[in-house]
């Protein structure tokens, strides 16, 4: 199934931060991507927050471990 527009936007942000192709990131989990370290994780979180004008809660941050999970969290925040 092709990725939707929000997924692609998130993948683009993660890809820019990690310098990886957004297309391949859509299918991967954080533990499969060695460049996705703790520091890059914070950079990804902040870049997503800035792009969508949202702020994740502290308890969400450790679980934003894939493009799909970040997409879900963005959608939740935009709905509230």
């Amino acid at each position: 199934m092709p990725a939707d527009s929000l997924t692609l936007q998130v993948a683009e942000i993660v890809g820019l931060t990690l310098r990886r192709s957004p297309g391949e990131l859509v299918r991967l989990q954080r533990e499969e991507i060695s460049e996705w370290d703790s520091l890059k994780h914070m950079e990804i979180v902040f870049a997503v927050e800035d792009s969508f004008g949202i702020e994740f809660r502290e308890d969400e941050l450790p679980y934003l471990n894939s493009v799909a999970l970040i997409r879900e969290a963005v959608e939740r925040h935009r709905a509230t």
Partner: protein
Amino acid sequence: MRHDLSAAGSAFGLRPITLADAGFVVQLRARGGRGAFMHSIAPDVAQQEAYLARYFDRPDDYYFIIYRLATGEAEGTIGLYDIDWRDRSAQWGRWIVRKGSLAALESAVLLYELAFDRLGLQMVYCRTVAANTAVLSFHRSFGLVMHELLPRHFRIGDHVYDAVEQRLTRELWNDIRAGVHATTLRFAGRVARVPERE
């Protein structure tokens, strides 16, 4: 060794480890989730206390508990050791944060501040199992420079591993500290705090 170095950042702090932390260390290691690349430790609290008692007698070895400023809750460990006062260098490690903790970045920042600003060191290095790509990537993202590959450097259990030594000099630290501080500050904005401690 018994020391009185401590540091408080924006959300997390470092304090000297005590005998009373032995149980926490055993739990942390057991639940750490990165077991493949960690040295085995004394498996029960009494043995861990004995290890800490020996550590207290060892000079130039600073072992810390990483804790949350808001609650005092311990979230991990970190250490600075093998200090060479002639060339003012030291190794850092024993770095474990509990699963789900967000203390990794700030604990590293605080350790570098202690090393360079308080102890006056000129260079700090880490030796990481070469296959531990997540930690190697963290150090690289932070700004450390690859120094050398150390073949068959670590023996962990029955396995022998190559290690990678990455280094941060005082000059490099001065170049990157503003950037990492900005990141830790922004993050800390959402971590609850209690009023400043004495």
